[in-house]
Structures are given as C-alpha cells and as structure tokens.
C-alpha cells in the first residue's frame, strides 16, 4: 500500500485538484465525444513560426540562453509591447522570458508574497490563480464578477473585497473562462484604487489580441501604473503556440529582478527554439493572428446565438474564445449539467465551478473548434435539453 502521502506538505495535500482533471479523465476514455472543453487554439502554429523553430534547430542553436532570454527576444518584446500596449520596457532590466504566463505568474507570486499576504483576484478565473497563491502560503481573496456586467470587474466590488494585508491584485482581461473585458473607465477606477491601497498589479493579458469588441487597454499604460504593474503575456493564444511554452513578464526592474532569482534557480531559461519561434511571431505574426481572430469571432457569433436559441442564456464574450452560458434554467448545478450532458449526449463542456465558486450556474464552451463540431454539439445539447423539464 502506498503510504507516501504522509510526506506531502500539508498545504499541498489540502489543495484541491483542478476540477478540469476529473472531467478530462472521463472524456478521454469516451469515443465520439464532441469536446467544447479545449482551452487552446484549434489552429496549428502558423507555418512561418514553426519554420523559425526548425531553422533554430538546424543551425544547432540548442544551448541555454541568458536567464532572461536572448537579447533579440527581449528587444522584440520591448518593441511589440510599446507598439501595442503603450509602456516602454528596458530589455536589459525590465523584461523576463518565461515558460508561458503560467510560470511568469508563479514566479511573480513567489518573488513578492510573504506568508500571510493577501491577493485579490476576480472570479470566475483561470484555474491556477488561487492555488498558486496558496502554494506561496498566502491568502487568495476572490472578487465575484457577474453575467449582468459581462463579467467585467466592478471597481466597487474590488473596494468591498479589499481588506488589510492585501498586497497584490491579479487581473486577467479578456478573461478565461468568461470572455469579460475591462474598458478604460473601469481600468482607471481600478488603477486609482490600486494606487490608493498601494497594490502591486499582475495583469495577465494572454488573450489581449483576441479582443472582439472595442480596443484592448492595458492597465500598465495608465498614469501611475507602470511602476506597480507586472505585465504578463505569452504566445499560446494569439499565435497558437501552446506547446512552445513561451511567455514573458515586463515590469519595474526591482520586481523583475526578484522574479529572475526564482526563475534562474528553478527554470534556468525558456527553451531557445521557443524563443526564436516567438521572435518570428512578434516580427511577422500579425497577419496570421488577425486571420485566426476573425475565425474565432465568426464562431463566437454562431455558438452564442445557438445557446440563446436553445434557451441557455449566454452573454456575448468580448474577448478570448470561450462562451459561458447560464445553465440555471435547467434546474441543475454546473457539475450535474456537465456530467449528464457528457453521459447522455457525449458533449464535453467544463463546469463553471472549475473556475471558482462565482462560476456556479455556468459552463464553459470553447469555440476554438470547427463549425462542424460546434454545430454537432448544438444538435446534441438540443436533444439533451428536450429530455429535461425547463424552468
């Protein structure tokens, strides 16, 4: 019998597993399932970007790089961020290449949190935020966002959630899983509050290129925010590069330096071939990115219309590639709905509660999949709904 569990640290042992894992285990064994549960682009990385990685290997560029990433990589990031988001960062001291935004956020938390510090974040949100905070022996404090507000963060709710000991605010716009965004006015109010309470802000902008309504505004570009914001970004979503595991953090030098310490001992550096592919994406990837964005937008319009036709109220996500329909009219909770739908019609949607308590009553449906699959899922969901009494 395996009794090695006694060696696992208390705060890890008590950490809940991602709700997505259980679901994945069921779906992966099921044949003919239509999955709307995939949180990544259904496009293959554009060819010219793949070719840059291949070329890097062919040239024998297989070494470590500077801990921060190659000079070229950081210079391109600096240019790209200044051009598209506003703030200018020094490639020498203010930019750090990472293994995706996941690592960037993790090392930011580890570099800045003391045990007992408090971290504000808006829910529903990406599955790793709260656990990553817990792993730092810090306390995660969720701020609920709601469908009526298209899941934007209400500055008043932020103020209400704040308590003494809060050090960091994690933002993610557009949001996985809700597609929520924050306009300039909301961000200005949030920024004002962050300054008032002297909060450090971690802004995960991984979906920013996939903004369908209005212009994306980075909180780092607002007055007084550059010096207290760590801008986190990567290549997985906009350039369909999930498997490359490449991202970056930009921010004031002292915090980036702290992150660099954690990064250099834990990771060393991001893979060189991924860095070279990323350089190509930054230089020449815009057309491919726009093409993919257009496709996502068309599919979004279809899936959202379909959910609403079926009587599952669904707001129009303003960014990212997830629809987040309200399933409360079925009388079921998110997990029951998702499980029954999977058992009876073999359609996989992720229960909203996997993204925090504020996701209760919703399910996430990725529209990063073919029309054929979205259409088929719609037919199956219609059949499923026919079998249950509706409120």
């Amino acid at each position, binding site marked *: 019998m395996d009794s090695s569990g006694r060696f696992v640290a208390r705060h890890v042992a008590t950490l809940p597993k991602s709700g997505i894992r259980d679901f994945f285990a069921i*779906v*992966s064994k099921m044949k003919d399932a239509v999955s709307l549960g*995939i949180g990544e682009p259904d496009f293959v990385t554009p060819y010219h970007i793949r070719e840059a990685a291949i070329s890097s290997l062919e040239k024998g560029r297989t070494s470590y790089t500077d801990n921060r990433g190659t000079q070229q990589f950081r210079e391109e990031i600096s240019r790209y961020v200044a051009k598209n988001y506003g703030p200018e960062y020094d490639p020498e001291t203010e930019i750090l290449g990472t293994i995706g935004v996941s690592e960037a956020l993790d090392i930011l938390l580890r570099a800045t949190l003391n045990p007992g510090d408090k971290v504000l974040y808006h829910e529903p949100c990406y*599955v790793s935020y709260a656990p990553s905070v817990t792993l730092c022996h810090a306390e995660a404090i969720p701020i609920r966002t709601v469908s009526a507000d298209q899941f934007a963060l209400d500055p008043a709710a932020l103020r209400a959630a704040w308590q003494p000991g809060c050090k960091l605010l994690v933002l993610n716009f557009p949001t996985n899983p809700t597609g929520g965004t924050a306009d300039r006015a909301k961000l200005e109010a949030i920024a004002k509050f962050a300054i008032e309470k002297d909060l450090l802000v971690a802004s995960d902008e991984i979906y920013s290129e996939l903004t369908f309504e209005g212009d994306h505004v980075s909180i780092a570009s607002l007055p007084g925010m550059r010096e207290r914001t760590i801008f986190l970004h990567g290549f997985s979503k906009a350039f369909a590069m999930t498997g490359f595991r490449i991202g970056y953090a930009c921010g004031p030098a002292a915090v980036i330096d702290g992150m660099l310490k954690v990064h250099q001992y834990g990771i060393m550096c991001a893979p060189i071939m991924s860095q070279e592919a990323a350089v190509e994406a930054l230089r020449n990837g815009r057309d491919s990115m726009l093409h993919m964005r257009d496709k996502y937008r068309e599919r979004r319009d279809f899936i959202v219309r*379909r959910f609403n036709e079926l009587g599952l109220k669904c707001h129009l996500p303003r960014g990212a590639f997830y629809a987040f329909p309200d399933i409360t009219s079925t009388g079921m909770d998110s997990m029951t709905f998702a499980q029954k739908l999977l058992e009876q019609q073999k359609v996989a949607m992720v229960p909203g509660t996997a993204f925090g308590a504020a996701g209760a009553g919703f399910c996430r449906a990725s529209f990063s999949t*073919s*029309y054929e699959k979205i259409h088929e899922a719609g037919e199956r969901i219609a059949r499923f709904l026919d079998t249950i009494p509706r409120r």
Partner: protein
Amino acid sequence: MNSVLKLILDGEALDTAQIGKILGLGAEAVDRELAALRKQGVLLGMRPVLNPSYESEHRVRAVIEIKIRTEGVGGFDGIAERISSFEQVESCYLMSGGYDLLVVVTADNLYKVAGFVHERLARIDGVQGTSTHFFLRAYKKDGFIVNAEGSRRDQPSVSP
C-alpha cells in the same frame, strides 16, 4: 467575400442546412445564395476532395506540358478551348515559361492517357510537342494533407 462562399472555402464538411444554421440564414437562403453565385460565374461547381490513394485504384492522372504554334490556328485561346473540351481534361492553363499550356488529365489507365496524347492532342493543328508526366503519389491535395493522421493526437480533450 460572400459569407456562404467563405464558409465553403474553409473546407469543412458542411451541408447547406448546417451552413444555414451557422450563418443564421436557413437552408433555402443558402441554396439561393449558391444559385446566384453559380449564375454570376463565381462558383463553377463543388466536388468532393478524394484521397488519391482511393482514387488511383481506379484512375491515373498526368500533367501534360504542351508547346503550341499560334500562327494560322486561332491563337492560344482557340487551341486551349479545343483541348479543354475533351472530357479527359480536368484542368487547362496557359502558362509562362518553357511551354504554353499545362493540362491535367485523368483516365482509367496509362494506355488511355497515351492514346489521348497521340490520337487527340498530337492531331490538333498547332500542337507542336507534348511532354507527359504521371502522378506517382500525393502528399497534399486541394489544401488537404493526405494521410494527416493524428497530427494533434496528443492534444487533451479538456484543458484549462
């Protein structure tokens, strides 16, 4: 671009009812749209793209480069139109470079292609020479990778 056309060109296997649902049009409206596109000469037709390994059990395909002489025979168009009218001819293009027309033909077997070349093409007034190349194996066809098995087979079916 026309939204119906755009969807068809994406290459997903969708019938008109599905297209109608996706675009919020209804199947009849899609059919009307397709009819209009045909009438305008934009859409010449729609055919399935078959895996050539299936196709080649029954057919052979070849490209033929044709050099032509235009004096006294009605110019390129006259000859190209004549060649295009043969049912063995799948496509016919006027080309720049070392030859004038590029013709793709399919037939039941190699001998029928050969027969087509020397009995039909070679007899057309203005055809000066031909060079025939048979297709051996297809790796990509009409935008589809042939035998693209499991290029994403390791992708998890649910991910965060």
